[in-house]
């Protein structure tokens, strides 16, 4: 009897211990996120508060300004917001169709031996450190654009879009393949049994059936594209001003702006970089909210 009671007590203790362990592990992540949000918002909002030690900057001028010239005390991120949105949109415009078609090829069209080679190859793209994409863009894409750009150099929105397109492919392909394969076989069989061709079945039944997964993939791709830094910094050109009016114009993105100056910035300039992070963070937050909405909807179906 005694032994049994002892064992029960010991078990109860270890149960509690592990509960505490799980809780603290979970809390760690939550605390980190909270700390980051607090840091960004307190530091980043300071330059817009009255009575700031380095002088108050107008928030509206910050959001819509088209000059980032710390030497002149000008901190406008408007042209970067536009550049970031254009770059993301452009990368999606190219990446989504290529990604979905690749996924369809892997999941449906390719013979299984080829699919078995292609899928890991595409997924390997995700494992390559982003700076390597930058180097590739710098060494290959920019010189290529040099050949036909009307501007003095190939550092441009176009180069950014091309690099980002390659970078968003793996997540779009991987998730789309999974969701295409998850479409129940009986839809496919039903369609083929009605005399639909393979291609008709793909476009009328399989892709619509995988819609929510593909949408998730697209939103994740948007997140990756807008947050990407190291790869694009090497090909963007990073000018101090200028709303891009052509695809050949050099651009400065929200992310690259932070990396370029955070290392040495002090005073108002350092604060303004934190304010840039707020803008970027707001975009990321919006993307994540969209994502969770899509997920909820997918669960309901």
């Amino acid at each position, binding site marked *: 009897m005694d032994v049994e009671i002892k064992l029960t007590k010991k078990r109860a203790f270890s149960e509690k211990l592990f509960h505490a362990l799980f809780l603290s592990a979970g809390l760690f992540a939550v605390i980190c996120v909270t700390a980051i949000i607090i840091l960004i918002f307190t530091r980043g909002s300071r330059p817009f508060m009255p009575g700031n030690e380095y002088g108050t900057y107008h928030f509206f001028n910050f959001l819509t300004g088209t000059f980032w010239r710390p030497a002149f005390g000008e901190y406008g991120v408007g042209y970067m917001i536009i550049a970031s949105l254009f770059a993301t949109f452009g990368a999606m415009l190219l990446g989504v169709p290529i990604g979905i078609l690749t996924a369809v090829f892997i999941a449906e069209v390719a013979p299984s031996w080829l699919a078995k080679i292609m899928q890991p190859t595409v997924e390997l793209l995700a494992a390559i450190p982003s700076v390597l994409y930058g180097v590739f863009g710098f060494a290959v894409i920019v010189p290529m654009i040099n050949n036909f750009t009307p501007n003095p150099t190939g550092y441009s929105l176009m180069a950014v879009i091309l690099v980002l397109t390659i970078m968003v492919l793996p997540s779009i392909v991987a998730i789309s393949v999974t969701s295409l394969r998850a479409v129940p076989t*009986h839809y496919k*069989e039903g369609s*083929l049994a*009605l*005399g639909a*061709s393979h291609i008709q079945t793909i476009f009328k*039944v399989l892709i619509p059936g995988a819609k929510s997964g593909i949408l998730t993939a697209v939103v994740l791709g948007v997140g990756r594209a807008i947050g990407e830094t190291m790869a694009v910094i090497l090909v963007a050109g990073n000018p101090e001003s200028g709303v891009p009016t052509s695809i050949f114009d050099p651009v400065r993105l929200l992310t690259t702006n932070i990396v370029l100056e955070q290392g040495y910035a002090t005073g108002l300039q350092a604060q303004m970089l934190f304010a840039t992070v707020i803008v970027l963070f707001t975009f990321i937050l919006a993307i994540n909210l969209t994502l969770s909405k899509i997920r909820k909807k997918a669960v309901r179906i």
Partner: protein
Amino acid sequence: METKFKIQDLNLFYGDFQALHNITLDLYENKVTALIGPSGCGKSTFLRTLNRMNDLIDNVKITGKILLDGRKDIYEKMDVIGLRTRVGMVFQKPNPFPMSIYDNVAYGPRCQGLKDKKKLDEIVEEALRGAALWDEVKDKLNKSGMSLSGGQQQRLCIARAIAMAPEVILMDEPTSALDPIATQKVEQLMGKLKEKYTIIIVTHSMQQAARISDKTAFFLMGEVIEFGDTDKIFTNPDKKETEDYITGRFG
């Protein structure tokens, strides 16, 4: 009695495993032929050779001949899409597409390139009437096919198949996922459908086979043990295995 399918020495292999052995069989026009037998006897596999559904599976090898209308070899002389427009199929689990009732029925004709709205309307109505579903859904053709009950979904799938005006309808245990009342409705429907179509049905239920079919083929271990008039198979079978199965001694 006209022969719809003439099957000669059909063998089917999944890799090294032989699933069908030397099947020779005539399936007759405007009759209901039931394929019965224990699980794994090859009856569904056989059914799926008739519209080449097995093409989807890797590693399947088929030898022998299946002649449609007694002359065209469906594996050598016909393209698979043409075959499937003539030989429709209804599956075990009702599988309407996640689209409206109308679009489900119009799916097949549209895939063949039919765009004329009026013609499509006619086909949809006629097919739904043919599947005894029209009165239940005529006011909600734009509702999702998935919103219907299981029995209605299965009749929608039958409507979808007959919208193609096929000559043959293959049914793979079409009532096994349905309740008794829905089953009864589908069975009644089959009696009506055989006036226009040749029906070949796989069923687990011997009572169902006895109720609805004119001809019955008894499958065992990938072979056809006995084939003949349903009445004869169920009352006075020639083979001992058939009798044992029918009387419930195994299966």
